[in-house]
């Protein structure tokens, strides 16, 4: 198998795993969103990833390089999820996909992660500590970058450390007072609840790791 082919298979496998995991966690995510939002995050994410699986099933996907594949994932999320999660997950994926033009390597994956985070913050204007997906993303991306660039760890190890960092970010959202997203309307009443978007971010990273390990 050519290198591009291997990467394509890896992306498809990752998407399948993510989609399956989101489907599994759908009502959990919705429950989290019920407590401090509007009870749709599970349905939103699931609708999006089901659409992605379908989109990647088409003939077009066979011809695409990894960057175009990932771009298509982003676009499909944009046009199927809606809500806050749609532009944040989908738009950032779409825009960051350009970093993968040369294929997926340790370097391009770091660039992808950084750009993805940047785009989430450009669009959503949330700083760390606002009780959003950003609280889970920042430690994950920072850990991944440092593990690869400074500690020279292999990508798999770096990803595994990123997942751990992400998980700490998710737990960290619990005691925070929300300042962005629907949970911000609850103000102090949001304290003590875990952010749904941070949680779905973790699930996605966990499945990427799982796929990479296989």
């Amino acid at each position, binding site marked *: 198998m050519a290198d591009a082919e291997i990467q394509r298979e890896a992306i498809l496998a990752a998407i399948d795993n993510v989609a399956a995991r989101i489907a599994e966690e759908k*009502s959990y995510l*919705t429950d989290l969103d*019920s*407590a*401090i*939002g*509007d*009870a*749709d995050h599970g*349905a*939103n994410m699931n*609708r999006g990833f089901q659409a992605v699986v379908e989109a990647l099933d088409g003939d077009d996907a066979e011809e695409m390089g990894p960057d175009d594949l990932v771009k298509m994932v982003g676009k499909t999320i*944009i*046009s*199927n*999820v*809606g*809500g*806050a*999660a*749609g*532009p*944040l997950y989908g*738009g950032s994926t779409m825009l960051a996909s350009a970093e993968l033009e040369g294929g997926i390597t340790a370097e391009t994956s770091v660039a992808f992660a950084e750009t993805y985070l940047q785009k989430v913050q450009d*669009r*959503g204007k949330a700083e760390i500590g606002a009780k959003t997906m950003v609280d889970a993303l920042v430690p994950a991306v920072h850990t991944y970058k440092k593990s690869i660039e400074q500690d020279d760890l292999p990508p798999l190890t770096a990803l595994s450390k990123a997942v751990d960092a992400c998980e700490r970010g998710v737990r960290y959202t619990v005691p925070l007072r929300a*300042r*962005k*997203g*629907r949970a*911000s*309307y*609850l*103000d102090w*009443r949001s304290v003590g609840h875990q952010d749904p978007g941070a949680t779905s971010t973790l699930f996605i990273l966990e499945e990427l790791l799982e796929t990479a390990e296989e």
Partner: protein
Amino acid sequence: MKKLINEPGDYVDEMLDGMVAAHPKRVRRLDGTKVLVRADAPIDGKVGVVSGGGSGHEPTHAGYLGEGMLDGAAAGEVFTSPTADQLEEMVNACDGGEGVLCVVKNYEGDVMNFETAGEMAEMEEVEVAQVVVDDDVAVEDSLYTSGRRGVCGTIFVHKVAGAKAAAGGDLQEVTEVAEKVVDNVGTMGMALTSCITPEKGEPTFDLGEDEIELGIGIHGEPGVERTDVMSADEVAEHLTEQVLDDLELDDGDEVATIVNGMGGTPMSELYIVNRRVQEVLGDHGLETWDAWVGDYMTSLDMMGCSVTVLRLDDELKELLGAPADTLALKRMD
């Protein structure tokens, strides 16, 4: 949960089909989208006024399609903003050459998707303006937060902007008058019960038999405060005073009001609330020029209500009072 539905996933789709089936001469659906537009859109030489957002707020948004209000209405999934690509299609379909005003309720999802749509439409050379409605006085407003929500005051924006566009205003004029409404309107809501979304099938939040939520939004998100049950008069007083505190009106000001039902509350109770709302306004030396009572911006089957107050001047009175002929809101000369 018991609902008059088929598959929860088909909810919005079938609702839209049902609307078109009821009003085939007034509205049409853009192919392959969840966007309804006036049957005669785009109207040549008229600024388009469009809105959209999650479903579950009926008659918002598509109920306000028609002469003197909206040209296009995009329906997202229940309580979920429509996607940017569909919003863009709507904008394009409603551009009669004079540009399009998007009336957006201040929710991150709506704002982000409309922003993207606007950027996309402008690449197609459609002039697009946006006004973001944030009338919910229950939520603290600050640069560091998402700010206040857009709720029932949005209907006044639709009415006024739609009337200005119908009267031949250009995009800037229509946008300015919409912004004037945003600057002068406040709303506060409360719930007796949570709504039940078709997907989840259970109340979004639990409320005891003796509790109510104050400062709720329109998506079943919990409110800012939970208290003991109050009488209709106490509810009316509380909501009205909160809105008045925020608006800082002067003695003798003229206002328009909405006592809005959240979907599951009978109209009789809304009138009982309106009775006291109008008394409170009178006590504050305010004059009600126009009072609306009914279900304008709902939250599925939630029981509860909101109170909206809009400070009026001559321009707003003229536009609010102008004729409108939409599915859900009609006004004669």
